[in-house]
């Protein structure tokens, strides 16, 4: 659970880790936009974006193998669409979809691996993303670990009492029951968390300690990323065209 959440990586102390989260968010957004607008005519640009992201991850000291592996998480979702296109007689579109999706996931991995989740939320808050949405994201992330460990405990308990998977109750029925219990427990926990917040004076808004401002170098980093990403696309179009 911890490594899936990139916590081991995002706590690093590299210069890239220290960049303002807004800079990294805007940089990632630029790369994603470039990936979305890369078409068949400029497909060599994908190699450029791959190189750009790989250099970024290497400079931050993030393991490249692990990053690539995590990017594959989107494969089950896009493989079906790619196969349909392959059957439909359009192999180049299938490849385009695969490359675009995998590199988009690689971009997200690069962002999450170099930015602690709280800093990411703070960056989004400073970019005027609605606080309510961020509060929901914050709580989902905070309590995902607990929910996951509760689910694992329940799965263990089920295995202990039904080691051979025999009996009249089918697995799906037991799982549905477990999900219902998890929901009820989560609801109860949400109520208790709300009590704990009210007990410490919560008035509907998450207060934050004042933060240091963005350094000039951070914006230079963003400008360089944007220029590189755009240059890759232009070069690829020129090269292919």
């Amino acid at each position: 659970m911890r490594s899936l959440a990139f916590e081991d990586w995002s706590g690093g102390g590299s210069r890239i880790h220290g960049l303002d989260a807004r800079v990294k968010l805007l940089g990632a957004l630029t790369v994603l936009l470039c990936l979305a607008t890369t078409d068949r005519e400029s497909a060599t640009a994908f190699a450029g974006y791959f190189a750009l992201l790989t250099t970024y991850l290497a400079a931050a000291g993030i393991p490249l193998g692990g990053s690539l592996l995590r990017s594959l998480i989107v494969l089950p979702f896009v493989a079906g669409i790619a196969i349909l296109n392959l059957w439909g007689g359009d192999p180049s579109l299938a490849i385009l979809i695969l490359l675009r999706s995998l590199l988009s996931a690689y971009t997200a991995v690069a962002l999450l691996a170099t930015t602690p989740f709280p800093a990411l939320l703070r960056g989004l808050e400073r970019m005027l993303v609605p606080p309510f949405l961020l509060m929901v994201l914050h709580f989902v992330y905070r309590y995902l670990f607990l929910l996951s460990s509760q689910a694992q405990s329940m799965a263990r308990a089920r295995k202990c009492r039904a080691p051979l998977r025999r009996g009249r109750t089918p697995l799906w029925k037991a799982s549905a029951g477990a999900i219902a219990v998890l929901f009820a427990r989560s609801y109860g926990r949400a109520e208790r968390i709300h009590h704990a917040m009210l007990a410490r004076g919560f008035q509907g808004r998450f207060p934050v300690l004042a933060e240091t401002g963005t350094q000039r170098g951070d914006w230079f980093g963003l400008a360089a990323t944007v220029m590189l990403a755009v240059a890759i696309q232009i070069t690829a179009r020129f090269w292919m065209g």
Partner: protein
Amino acid sequence: MSTSAIIQVTNLRYSYPDGTAALNGVDFQLDLGETVAVLGANGSGKTTFLLHLLGLAEGKNEGEIVVCGMPVRKKNLAQVRQKIGMLFQDSDDQLFMPSVEEDVAFGPLNLGLSPDEVRKRVKESLGQVAMEHVASRPPYHLSAGEKRRVALAGVLAMSPEIILLDEPSTFLDPPAKSSLIEILQSLSQAKILVTHDLILARRLASRAVYFEHGKITAEGDVEEVIEAAGWDGVSRPSAVAAR
């Protein structure tokens, strides 16, 4: 209300929204600087009682609760919650911010204090529970004992006059429990300690009350109440004396 009482509860009655009676006429008093253990079986109304002191229970109640001279009513809740801090039974319910420092700062920031004052309070309260070294860590990576101490720091950062402790030794191993007891003993605030842990009650409390079916059925010296409740392993539970 006597001059030394900082909490005075008179004839408190409360039923859950589904109609189940939870508190059936509770009379209680907490004096300045004292620690009272609240004992009782599961479901006897102890935690519900604590939630009422903070104005956190949903629905209507009857009777009166006065905290530091203020009736616990909607218009006073902000001030009441400044006077009372509560350590919840499950620290994971209480530690919801991304880092320990931010979590401890949550209460003081809600009080509208300046960032410098908040940082000072965070440092002091983490120092009180010997947890300064985890300030930058996410709370969910701490051990149960560490979480409990950080949660207590979050309460102390609000400088309360009264601390409510709901089963503070739950999930703690013996060394963590001893350490928590030492910290709690060093605090000058008045405390209400809800517990099943008789070691904790004996070491911290000067007085005890026993809850049964939403009522206090025995009160007095800790040992006497333990004996009257039949929790000493000798007496029978039915020996609980009527008040």
